[in-house]
């Protein structure tokens, strides 16, 4: 609890969290304004997908910066050194840091989206289940990229290095990865489709988008071609927790094993 309180004080004093939150707010309101004219009662689901698609550009970048800076700050201000000399292991410190950062960012965004639910109710036919699906998808996105940010903060030595790593990671997930997939696509056939699918769905952006569209009923999974059936070998509701677990575990463990001390010997 002390750690969470300390983390809240640090994050709330900085500008990163507020910048991220205000960006999310502006985007949500702007898309809501744009979506007013959506036809028929499916407008709410389309709004949620549009909101998510816009968030995909910003939330990874912002959460990478917020969480990675939370770690690098500990290194630069030498508080990490003080904590580690008090018989606390790096694993224990990192776990508490992870819980603190994740909890605060998740709660902040949750508060905003609950507040946004009110105008949503006036503009659309509000479907509670669709709203929960959106929240689940959004929070998974936030948690995964927070964790990757914590990992980057853990392995980088200084701020300059970290800024470069954050931008590169964001660019890799948003653009490069899909470009690689597109160039590899002509070689995909019925024999290697399952292997391709595993790699495809390991990309959290693919899994989350797919889960969101299927769970909102905008992308039906029936009447698929043979190839697509093989591609979607596991229902999206299972793909989502698996992807979350893989990225959380991988980022956490690599953060511990590949950590740099940032000047601490």
């Amino acid at each position, binding site marked *: 609890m002390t750690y969470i309180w300390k983390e809240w004080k640090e994050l709330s004093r900085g500008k990163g969290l507020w910048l991220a939150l205000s960006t999310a707010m502006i985007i949500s309101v702007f898309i809501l304004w*744009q979506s007013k004219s959506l036809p028929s009662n499916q407008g709410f689901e389309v709004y949620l997908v549009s909101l998510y698609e816009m968030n995909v550009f910003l939330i990874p970048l912002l959460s990478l910066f917020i969480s990675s800076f939370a770690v690098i700050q500990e290194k630069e201000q030498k508080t990490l050194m003080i904590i580690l000399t008090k018989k606390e292991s790096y694993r224990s410190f990192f776990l508490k840091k992870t819980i603190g950062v994740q909890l605060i960012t998740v709660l902040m965004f949750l508060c905003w989206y609950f507040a946004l639910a009110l105008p949503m109710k006036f503009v659309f036919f509000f479907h509670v289940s669709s709203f929960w699906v959106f929240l689940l998808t959004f929070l998974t996105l936030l948690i995964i990229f927070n964790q990757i940010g914590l990992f980057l903060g853990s392995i980088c030595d200084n701020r300059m290095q970290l800024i470069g790593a954050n931008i590169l990671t964001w660019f890799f997930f948003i653009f490069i990865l899909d470009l690689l997939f597109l160039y590899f696509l002509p070689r995909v056939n019925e024999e290697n489709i399952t292997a391709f699918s595993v790699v495809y769905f390991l990309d959290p952006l693919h899994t989350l988008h797919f889960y969101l569209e299927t769970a909102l009923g905008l992308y039906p999974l029936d009447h698929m071609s043979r190839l697509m059936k093989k591609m979607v070998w596991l229902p999206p509701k299972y793909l989502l927790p698996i992807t979350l677990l893989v990225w959380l575990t991988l980022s956490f463990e690599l953060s511990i094993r590949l950590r740099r001390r940032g000047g601490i010997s």
Partner: protein
Amino acid sequence: MRRKWYWMAGFTLYFLLQNPICLMAEDPSLQDLVDQTPKNGILHLQNKTYNGNVVITKPITVKGRSRTSIKGDGTGNVILLKKTADGTRLESLRISHSSQNRNSEEEYSAIKVLSDRNVLKNLKISDSFHGIYLSSSDDNELSQVQITGIGGGEIAGQGNGVQLIRSHRNQLKDTVIRDSRDGIYFSYSNDNVVKDVDISHTRYGLHYMYSDNNHFFHNRFHQNIGGAAIMNSKRIELIGNEFSYQQGSRSFGLMLQASDENNVKDNHFYHNQRGLYIDLSQKNRIISNDFHQNRVGVELWASSSNQVFSLNRFFRNILPVITIGGRAKNKWSEGHKGNEWGDTFALVDLNEDKIGDIPVQYQSSLAKLMEDQELVYLFLPSPSIKIFEKINQFLHRQETVFKDPYPLLSEQQGGFQAGWFLLILFFIMLGMIYVQRRRKVR
């Protein structure tokens, strides 16, 4: 004790002699009631459930009330209008439980119509293989019908909402169909009119084979695998319909396959995987339609040629148009009026006639990839698609998709940019106020 038994026996005997009908006779069956109704007579049914099945052999009117229900025995058609029942009216009925048997001689339905000039009005149909089956039945009027199929499971196990086989000049209006195999299935049926019908959660909202000169006005096809699949048919008129939320991997709003000379006008294609899909079709007129936020606005296979596209509005589709299998010969303007392309092209209009001064040409490198690999559709929402296109543009690997000689100036585009501009301006002002206040505090 014995005396008591005598009294009871005597009382029972007296009651039976006084009210013999109550205990001995049954209600006449629905078939009896129908048979007893004279030709052109009216049969008023009560607010209760009648057991079917029933066969109507002469023209009569069967009128129910708000909760009148006819439940079949699950062995055949619930109501069968025989050839001799021309001009029958069925009104205000709930009909359910036809046979679902697929190994029988015929496919069963809630209402099977073999006669002409019937009126089917205010009906609720459920738990049946086909909803309404018109077989060689002409000039019927169907309105205010609500058909709910069994949904889910394998496609072969479901029937169609309304099925027309060799049936002509029928009218279907104000109807809601959902959860069936196909919403309306046409085969060898001409000159029919479908108006204000809402079809959702089916395989194809409209499935169409070898049927010509039919008309569709102001219908809604949404959340189906395919909105309307028009195959091997000619001169179909589709005006003012909405095709939306067809988003499966093979989904489309409207498909024209081996269908020629159709008129597709004033329709709204919204949020589909493919808005309009044209294959093996010639001489279709695609005029004044809205293509809004589809993954692919129009997918044209090279086997299709001589279509005319004019006055259509393309806005925020990931790919407005894609031609697969090479560039086909199609016209992208008519009477010096092209199409609106939203923010796809930046247009110059110096003479302010709302038509771009320079022809626009759309190029893409995705056609070849899409032709070979259907998984490309999974990547269409990805931001890297634009980078992929730019890289291929730089490497000269793009093919020309279309050339619009008279592109129309987009009004939506201007509004959108103005909105962004105002919003950014507002936040810059807020930022400036904040900075000034902080300076004052210091």
